[in-house]
């Protein structure tokens, strides 16, 4: 290979002749790395191309999700206790299970909810434990206790492992012609099995419709009149619906299976079954009961677009790819469309589709990335006025980001709003290393060309790279170090933000590797022979000239500069009290989840009536696409809502963030016009995050712990009243309020003895009458239909009718229940809460028009002052405010440690205490801009904003290091004495790269900052605003303040070696 200068060609394998000996007499690792990259530049460039292709392939097949898995390792356990009251469930089921599992390994906390007939426990394990091992440990404990629970209580079971955000898809079906039975049967027996067969779907819960039962609705008058006992009736029904196998007959040649069909599958056939009590004339079942297909007692219901329908809620498996599974489910639904049409069923497939938010967020992040890349390219070209330099610099963006994606994919980290946000924030940073490298190489090549004896261009490339290497490496390490506090955060905030930090650090470190290898190689290929290198771009010349003119008077007044700086810092600091605090901003999901609750004891029918009206009002808004309401709970669902509580899911049409907020206000105002219901409006993710933090779906959670339920209720009511009186409080509710009407039946044992009854006989009779006793099952095609004996419906509509329930003893005597028991209408609770096996009552609220942190602070003061707590009772605040407090505390502590580490790193780099202080000056410089920017935008500091501050320091330190290191180079290497003119010269020479890196970083963040609350940018936007503000002031002050202060206070000794030469 020859060149125009006539010098001997550069050998592929470098030797000592090609590279001058380093000043220290040895070749460092980085130097050799850069040298090899230059020598094998073609190979390096080809490998870079392969890396990009592989990165794109990885992106195509990566797992996308809404958020990182922010749910700690946890298991949900359900235990059905049919018919037991909440108090009985608590005492007989919940407490024994809690006792059994509390000692299991790795258990961090146990929360439980006891409602009628069901107990749900959420067991949270310690961070970092293997969820599969945790489940195994739990399973062993549950197996041991299953046999000790009361008769009739089913064995506790663990819910399937689902992803943190849980909801995969909600869809609804409705029909104008099909009955609720047919609709529910279609959902249970056709739709649900098909959906469960899709890979990645863990659970499908069904709300609404009517579950068909073959009911034997007993008429107690006829039972008494015909002298038939309930036991006789149940026995006859069981015998009529039993299924038996019959074996087979085997001949010499064949085996012939015997199949028996003896069930009475129709109401008429079952009604004709003879009860045949002994000693009396045979009586048919139809003589004492109405046998008919009827609806099973419901725990929940659903409205689809304001009309009765069936709702199916799908949860995805743990670790499943939300987008892929959603697409697979939608494909399955498309295949089922003919079946739906033939049944005249209308399908609403997108009542809630979290994948939409993922797609929007990714789209927005991608837009930000693309726009940022374009802006970066424009800036680079404008400054360098050289297309090749711009290409070389920009190539660092895809190389760094794709490398980070590849590494994350290898380690199973999904691409979600956090990791993509981290990459988006890094977009400006990853190109900085390349810019510094390219700019310096470009300048040195230009200078070399103008030398009387130009050196080999590749030598120039190498030296120019090494010249800035030290600064680049240390700056990058510092930028990475500032993120360590984010990685070390624990709890929910750690799980949410760590992936952001990981993505950011990976991108930054990848950019460093790119800057050490690919960038020099590309420079070596594309730059050396260009004629345009001979001249400095005019823009650069003009900027430098103007800068020098501006700086000359400033550098002569360092104390004035310092004084102004102090005033600015003081001014910025004085803004701090005006800031509010929040844990997370609201996500622009295009989906809202209002909760609507009436007083406990309100019926399903009443909530449905209210829901129909609310749905009609909401659907009048043109921006609302779909509305569905789920009332109560699904059978075997995880929620423990009573029939008095319902949840709406409102999906919007594609809207902007502002429209999103307007719709939210519309929903809130609409709901406020409805009397008798407590409401709150959350987003789905906000709901899930709140629930993960505290078990409740609200921003502020106040837990009252104690043993006495009445006392807990009293104190919770006081807290509720206090919170309601505070400014900004909305949606104040007691989670499990008392006041649910109950009929208390207390058996009188002397009466039982007198009339010849056993207590359990009476309890069984009551249970059969009002809850129903399953006597068998019948098959109708694919459907399995329960056969249930229950009291006639007309006798189950008034609680007073319980008194006249006739019971028959073994001697055949009939006695009304009121003779055997005290029956009183009383007040109970629909739910009992535990946390760590302690009883608790919880008050929740959301905050409007002020920040959560100040609200909680005020609330704590009020509660401390006004709520008297007896011994054994105490209050603990939770919710997002606590999480923010924890996050803030952790961040500040860890940041202080990280800053200490950075200082030590800087001390190694700059060595002189005065120079170190000059670099540390970035902290207040960046603070000024960050605080002012946050103040101007919203006056709210979120955890994202705090991370922005942390990030800011690392980013802005780079420029100071570059400037100081250049001063070191000028004095130590070029032998220029340290004086004001040297400071001006060095600053002028660093002006372009400083401006470029700052502009590039800023422009890379600009789309995110401007994006505000658009989907996918909610968390990163405040971060970007803070960084932008701080970057602006830091850059301006670095260029104006630092040279002046360095000239006055800096120490640069020509005898010292350049420690930044690596």
């Amino acid at each position, binding site marked *: 290979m020859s060149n125009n200068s006539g010098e001997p060609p550069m050998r592929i394998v470098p030797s000592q002749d090609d590279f001058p000996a380093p000043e220290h007499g040895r070749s460092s690792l980085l130097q050799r790395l850069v040298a090899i990259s230059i020598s094998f530049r073609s190979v390096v460039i080809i490998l870079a191309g392969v890396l990009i292709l592989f990165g794109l392939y990885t992106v195509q097949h990566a797992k996308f999700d809404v958020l990182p898995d922010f749910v700690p390792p946890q298991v949900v356990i359900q235990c059905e206790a049919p018919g037991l009251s909440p108090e009985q469930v608590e005492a007989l089921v919940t407490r024994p299970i809690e006792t059994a599992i509390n000692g299991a390994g790795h258990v961090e906390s146990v929360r439980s909810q006891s409602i009628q007939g069901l107990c749900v426990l959420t067991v949270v394990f310690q961070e970092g434990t293997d969820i599969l091992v945790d489940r195994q440990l739990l399973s062993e404990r549950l197996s041991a206790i299953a046999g000790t629970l009361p008769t009739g209580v089913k064995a506790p079971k663990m819910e399937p492992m689902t992803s943190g955000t849980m909801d995969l898809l909600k869809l609804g079906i409705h029909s104008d012609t099909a009955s609720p039975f047919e609709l529910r049967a279609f959902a249970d027996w056709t739709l649900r099995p098909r959906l469960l067969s899709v890979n990645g779907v863990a659970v499908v819960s069904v709300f609404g419709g009517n579950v068909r039962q073959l009911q034997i609705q007993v008429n107690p*008058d*006829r039972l*008494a*009149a*015909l*002298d038939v006992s309930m036991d006789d009736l149940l026995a006859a029904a069981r015998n009529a619906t039993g299924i038996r196998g019959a074996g087979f007959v085997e001949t010499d040649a064949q085996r012939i299976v015997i199949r028996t069909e003896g069930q009475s599958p129709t109401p008429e056939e079952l009604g004709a079954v003879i009860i045949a009590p002994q000693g009396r004339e045979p009586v048919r079942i139809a003589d004492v009961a109405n046998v008919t297909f009827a609806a099973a007692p419901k725990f929940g219901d659903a409205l689809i677009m304001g009309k009765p329908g069936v709702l199916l809620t799908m949860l995805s498996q743990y670790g499943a790819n939300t987008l892929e599974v959603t697409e697979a489910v939608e494909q399955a639904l498309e295949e089922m469309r003919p079946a739906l049409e033939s049944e005249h069923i209308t399908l609403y497939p997108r009542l809630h589709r979290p994948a939409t938010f993922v797609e929007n967020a990714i789209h927005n992040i991608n837009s930000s990335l693309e726009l940022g890349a374009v802006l970066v390219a424009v800036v680079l070209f404008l400054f360098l006025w050289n297309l090749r330099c711009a290409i070389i610099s920009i190539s660092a963006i895809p190389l760094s980001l794709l490398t980070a994606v590849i590494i994350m994919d290898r380690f199973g980290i999904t691409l979600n709003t956090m990791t993509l946000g981290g990459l988006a924030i890094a977009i400006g940073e990853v190109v900085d290393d390349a810019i510094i490298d390219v700019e310096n190489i470009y300048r040195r090549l230009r200078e070399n060309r103008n030398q009387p004896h130009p050196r080999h261009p590749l030598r120039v490339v190498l030296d120019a790279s090494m010249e800035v290497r030290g600064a680049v490496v240390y700056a990058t390490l510092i930028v990475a170090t500032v993120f360590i506090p984010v990685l070390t955060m624990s709890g929910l905030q750690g799980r949410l933000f760590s992936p952001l930090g990981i993505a950011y650090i990976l991108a930054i470190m990848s950019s460093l590797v790119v800057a050490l290898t690919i960038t020099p190689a590309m420079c070596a290929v594309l730059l050396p022979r260009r004629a345009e290198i001979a001249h400095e771009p005019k823009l650069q010349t003009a900027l430098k000239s103007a800068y020098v003119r501006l700086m000359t008077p400033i550098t002569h007044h360092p104390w004035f500069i*310092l*004084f102004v700086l*102090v005033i600015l*810092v*003081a001014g910025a*600091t*004085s803004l*701090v*009290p005006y800031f509010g605090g929040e844990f997370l901003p609201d996500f622009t999901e295009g989906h809202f989840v209002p909760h609507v609750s*009436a*007083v406990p*004891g*309100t*019926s399903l029918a*009443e909530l449905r*009536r*209210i829901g129909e*009206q609310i749905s009609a009002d909401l659907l009048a808004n043109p921006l609302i696409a779909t509305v569905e309401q789920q009332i109560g709970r699904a059978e075997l669902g995880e929620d423990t809502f009573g029939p008095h509580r319902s949840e709406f899911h409102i999906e919007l049409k594609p809207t902007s963030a502002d429209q999103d907020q307007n719709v939210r206000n519309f929903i809130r105002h609409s709901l406020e*016009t*409805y*009397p*008798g*219901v*407590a409401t709150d409006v959350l987003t789905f993710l906000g709901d899930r995050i709140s629930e993960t933090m505290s078990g409740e779906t609200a921003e502020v959670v106040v837990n009252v712990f104690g043993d006495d339920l009445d006392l807990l209720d009293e104190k919770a*009511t006081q807290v*509720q*009243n*206090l919170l*309601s*009186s505070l400014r900004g409080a909305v949606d*104040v509710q007691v989670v499990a309020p008392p*006041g649910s*009407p109950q009929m208390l039946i207390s058996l009188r044992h002397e009466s039982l003895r007198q*009339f010849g009854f056993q207590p359990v006989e009476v309890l069984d009779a009551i249970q059969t009458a009002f809850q129903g006793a399953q006597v068998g099952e019948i098959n109708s095609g694919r459907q399995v239909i329960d056969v249930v004996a229950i009291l006639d419906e007309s006798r189950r*509509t*008034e*609680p*007073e009718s319980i008194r*006249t329930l006739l019971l028959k003893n073994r001697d*055949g*005597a*009939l*006695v*009304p229940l009121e*003779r055997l028991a005290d029956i009183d*209408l*009383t*007040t109970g609770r629909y739910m009992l809460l535990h946390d760590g096996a302690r009883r608790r009552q919880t008050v929740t609220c959301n905050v409007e028009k002020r920040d959560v942190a100040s609200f909680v602070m*005020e609330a704590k*003061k009020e509660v401390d*002052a*006004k709520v008297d707590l007896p011994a054994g009772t105490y209050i603990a605040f939770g919710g997002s405010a606590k999480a923010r407090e924890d996050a803030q505390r952790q961040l500040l502590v860890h940041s202080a440690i990280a800053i200490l580490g950075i200082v030590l790193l800087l001390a190694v780099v700059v060595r002189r205490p005065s120079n170190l202080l000059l670099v540390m000056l970035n902290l207040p410089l960046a603070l000024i801009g960050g605080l002012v920017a946050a103040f101007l935008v919203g006056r709210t500091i979120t955890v994202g904003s705090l991370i922005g501050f942390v990030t800011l320091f690392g980013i802005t330190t780079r420029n100071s290091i570059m400037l100081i290191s250049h001063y070191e180079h000028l004095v130590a290497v070029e032998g220029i004495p340290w004086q004001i003119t040297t400071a001006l010269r060095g600053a002028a020479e660093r002006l372009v790269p400083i401006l470029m890196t700052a502009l590039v970083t800023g422009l890379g963040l600009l789309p995110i900052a401007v994006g505000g609350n658009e989907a996918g940018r909610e968390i990163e936007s405040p971060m970007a605003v803070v960084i932008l503000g701080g970057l602006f002031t830091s850059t301006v002050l670095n260029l104006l303040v630092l040279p002046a202060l360095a000239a*006055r*206070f800096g120490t640069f000794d020509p005898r010292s070696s350049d420690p930044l030469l690596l």
Partner: protein
Amino acid sequence: MRHLHDLIRITALTIFALGIGCFTSSCDHAKDAGGEAAKSAEKEKPDEDKKPDETAPKGVKLSKEVRVRLGLMVEELHAKEFRPETIAYGVLEEDSASIFILRAPLAGIIRGDDATPIPIIGQIVEASTTIGRIEPRLGPVEFLDVESRLTQANAEVTEASAALTNAQLSYESKKKLNENQLVSDRTFEESDLRVKQESARLAAAKQVVSQLEAARSTGGLGIASMPLRVPRAGEVVECNCRNGEAVEAGQVLIKVANYERVIARITVPFGTVIDELSREARIVVVGNEDHPLDAHRVAAGISNTGRLEGRTLLYSVDAQGVAVRPGAGVTAYLPTTTETLSGFIVPRPAVVRYLGRSWVFAQVEEGQYLRRPIDTKYPTAAGWFVDSGFNDGDPIVVTRAAVLLSEEAKAAIEQEAASVE
């Protein structure tokens, strides 16, 4: 020295900056603290009048628009008379005055023909209807008896004939002797008497023979058959005879019943209070729940049905065209008070349960509702009968009462929160 001066200046500036920051912050905090102190002082001001009574109903106000949207409906209560009843169970029995059993008067063969067909079960017969005939018949024992008696009677005839012949010969002899005055007139008269006696004995013996011979041929009655008549009208509920069937004397042939009136044996559970003076009741027969029947108490029963523990009362039930049968189970509605009560019927949807009681919402003025307790001890088909607490024309909420209850609970929190402020 120069560096020392610089250090002092920097330190002074830093302290100055911190001082400015702390001063501005403390100003704001002092302002807030002052405000909060004033607020808390105001909050701590005792106001006994505002302290809420947690148990007293608070009332609910709703605007017209909200009421219309909810579909909240109000109806006026109108005075009604009501007699409380309690429920008891029993069984129907036959009223002995309403049945008639026709038995066979003698052993014989039942005969029916076109003119007098034997009835079938379910057939309605009029009073004095002839339902067939019975032909008397001797049974083997009777026949043997008649034969032996006939033999004896024939022997009697023979003996009487012989005795008469002997008496006649003696008379002839004595006549001649008397004519010859060889025997006294008395002796002659005695022989004459003996002839007459023997003649009479012979005649009687012959008559017995004649009767026995007649009985042997006609079954004893001396007639071919006798009709069977039912003296009372009614429905044939039992028929144990067929044409040509031999029956015994006293056998039940048919049972005619008139179930227009039956007896209900009702067991009132112990402890159940009924109006002892009232003898009227409503009876509902199983399967005829839509047709309650009037009943009149006739007696206290001696024993109960065994189904219920309690005392037994017998009621005469007028079937009023309903097909009732003995053995059917019945539900009896027995009045518990002598006098009817005056009050109002509260529809069931108007009632809510709360704090251990039942309530309705009364409209106190347009759009304003107050919760009032009611007693749900008197159920009726239309709702609950309440005899106190309301006046005629009082409007109550009959739909969406649960929403009002919920709203009241919510408003109570807001009122208490306001009182805290």
